[in-house]
């Protein structure tokens, strides 16, 4: 059939043309895609969404700089539901999609630790802006982290707490990888400084009443209470702690250095000490970021939005430097080059041994409903 043959020939020509075009694109990519996995639904969806919004702000700000004119930059965020399984499924999907240059995520260390080995094996960079478990970057050379490092936080916590006069500390943690690592590393640093840990327990995150465990902690006569929790549980703990009329000073993990805690806990947070990292009180640039974010999303950002923003901006700036020679491997090389980057959280120094950037900690206290930096 001549008509049929004609169609076939046309198709062949079309395919050739398309593949030529594709080759051209490969030489001068018009589109840059970065993958992302985050908990967009489920009980911690709020944090995943904060990450997503941080990424989008980073793209907007990057586009506004005009460094890569005519190139579409996108970050495709997939929902891992805070579940390791879904993280793994997404990872298999991303490593197959050759247009994905690097992957950001996830929020929970559990998910990142499960998906990380797959990225690492496939030689696709996974940069996590949040997951703080010490093992994350131990997975392999393609794993990077740009968030608070728990061991660093532990040391800084111990230093601050001993200066505040802590000698007998009671510790409460959340029973997940974050809480276990946070409490464990802070405890180790405290004990190294001669502090006695009189009580340590991990609470039930789905419970609403923590007075029972608080009473148990207070019975051991601590002189400071350490909270390795997230804001929702910490706010309940703080409220119930005040209700018990206890006077022992409270110290919160750096994750509690957020306005979210103040919003949920209200007066009960008054007097709590904590380290600040990504809080508007740490510097002008960060305060600016918070202002712009609020103007855009009509809500105060989570600290995780700032984390995500910093990571995405750094990645995009590096891509702009390398353009147009972009491969998955070149991204790794770019991140590997020891460098200090300037961010909204101030300069961050890269440690090639751990493939992490270290953040600055600012000591603070809650007074009159806000975090006040202490000198």
């Amino acid at each position: 059939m001549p008509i049929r043959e004609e169609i076939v020939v046309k198709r062949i020509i079309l395919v050739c043309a398309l593949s030529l075009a594709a080759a051209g694109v490969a030489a001068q990519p018009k589109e840059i895609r970065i993958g992302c996995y985050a908990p967009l639904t489920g009980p911690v969806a709020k944090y995943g969404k904060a990450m997503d919004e941080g990424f989008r702000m980073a793209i907007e700000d990057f586009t506004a700089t005009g460094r890569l004119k005519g190139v579409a930059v996108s970050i495709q965020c997939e929902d891992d539901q805070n579940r390791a399984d879904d993280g793994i499924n997404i990872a298999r999907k991303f490593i197959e999609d050759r247009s994905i240059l690097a992957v950001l995520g996830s929020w929970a260390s559990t998910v990142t630790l499960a998906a990380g080995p797959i990225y690492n094996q496939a030689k696709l960079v996974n940069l996590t802006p949040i997951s703080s478990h010490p093992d994350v970057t131990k997975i392999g050379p393609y794993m990077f982290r740009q968030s608070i490092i728990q061991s660093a936080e532990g040391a800084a916590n111990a230093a601050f707490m001993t200066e505040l006069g802590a000698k007998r500390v009671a510790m409460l943690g959340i029973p997940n990888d974050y809480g276990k690592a946070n409490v464990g590393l802070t405890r180790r640093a405290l004990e190294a400084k001669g502090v006695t840990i009189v009580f340590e327990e991990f609470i039930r995150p789905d419970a609403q009443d923590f007075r029972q465990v608080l009473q148990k902690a207070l019975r051991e006569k601590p002189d400071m209470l350490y909270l390795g929790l997230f804001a929702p549980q910490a706010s309940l703990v703080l409220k119930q702690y005040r209700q018990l009329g206890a006077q022992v000073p409270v110290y919160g993990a750096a994750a509690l250095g957020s306005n979210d805690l103040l919003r949920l806990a209200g007066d009960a947070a008054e007097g709590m000490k904590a380290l600040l990292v990504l809080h508007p009180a740490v510097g002008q640039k960060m305060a600016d970021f918070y202002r712009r974010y609020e103007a855009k999303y009509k809500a105060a950002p989570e600290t995780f939005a700032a984390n995500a923003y910093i990571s995405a901006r750094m990645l995009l700036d590096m891509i702009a430097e390398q353009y147009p020679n972009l491969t998955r491997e070149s991204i790794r090389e770019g991140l590997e080059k020891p460098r200090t980057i300037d961010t909204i959280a101030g300069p961050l120094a890269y440690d090639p041994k751990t493939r992490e950037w270290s953040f600055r900690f600012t000591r603070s206290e809650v007074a009159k409903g806000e975090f006040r930096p202490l000198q």
Partner: protein
Amino acid sequence: MDAFILNQLAIGASVGMTYAVVAIGFTLIYRVLTAVNFAHGEVYTLGAFATLIGAATFKLPLWAVVPLVVATGALAGWGIERAAFRPFRRYADEASLKSRAVREATLLSSLALGIVAREALDIAFKGEWLAIPQDYLLNQPVRLGPVGVSSGELVIGGASLALLAALQWMLMRTRTGVAIRAVAANLVGAQLSGIDINRVVVAVFAVGSVLGALAGMVVSLAYGSVQSYMGLTVVIKAFVAMVIGGLTSLPGAVAAGVLIGVAESVAGIFVPSAWTEMVAYVLLIFTLLFMPRGLFRWGGA
């Protein structure tokens, strides 16, 4: 007994009261239809959200939040009955009304409806933990001898006892109560006595759900935060309380709810509190195996 133990018991009892107040509505619905309403936890959540919206968005005074919560609960109960239960009452004879197939189908349909409601709330409120404004909270410390409790706990305890008493009065003394008990006792007999069972069942769902929503309200006022997944744990505890309490006994469910709370608290003295989650289920399995009719065979209502 030293103050520590007393306080632990008091805390357990007050946590148990929150299970109890949810269990009342749950048990009422089970008693009438022999069907489990797994969407009850979401009614509780809706009650808490109605409180939040009334307090934070409309800044209503506390007394005006109550009718809002009641209306929310009644509407939710009506909706659950219409969507997840009525479609399965296709025939009006005893064989199909209380058959195992219908019970299991409604268990799953209400579970599914609960998931839909929970996820919808999650989307609507971005999965956030939301705080009830400070001045609405019932968390002033109150000292009763060596025991320290909060005003909210007294309200929860008072509310669950008052709701229980009101419900018992309604069941025993009013015409609606007689109709409800008749439907619970014998669906066919009730129809042949001229009782419109659809109306009674809707009334039961409305009343039970109003109780669930009120439970959500008092608990959210006592603890101060609200979230779309908050009903999940509580509904399971209410379920356990219902079974331990003997399935159809309202006072039994209340007593069992308190018992679970106290048992959790006492267990927490000896083991890390993370393990106390299992206490309710150990009690449950023990009850099912050795006292299949529940711990309290108090007859009556």
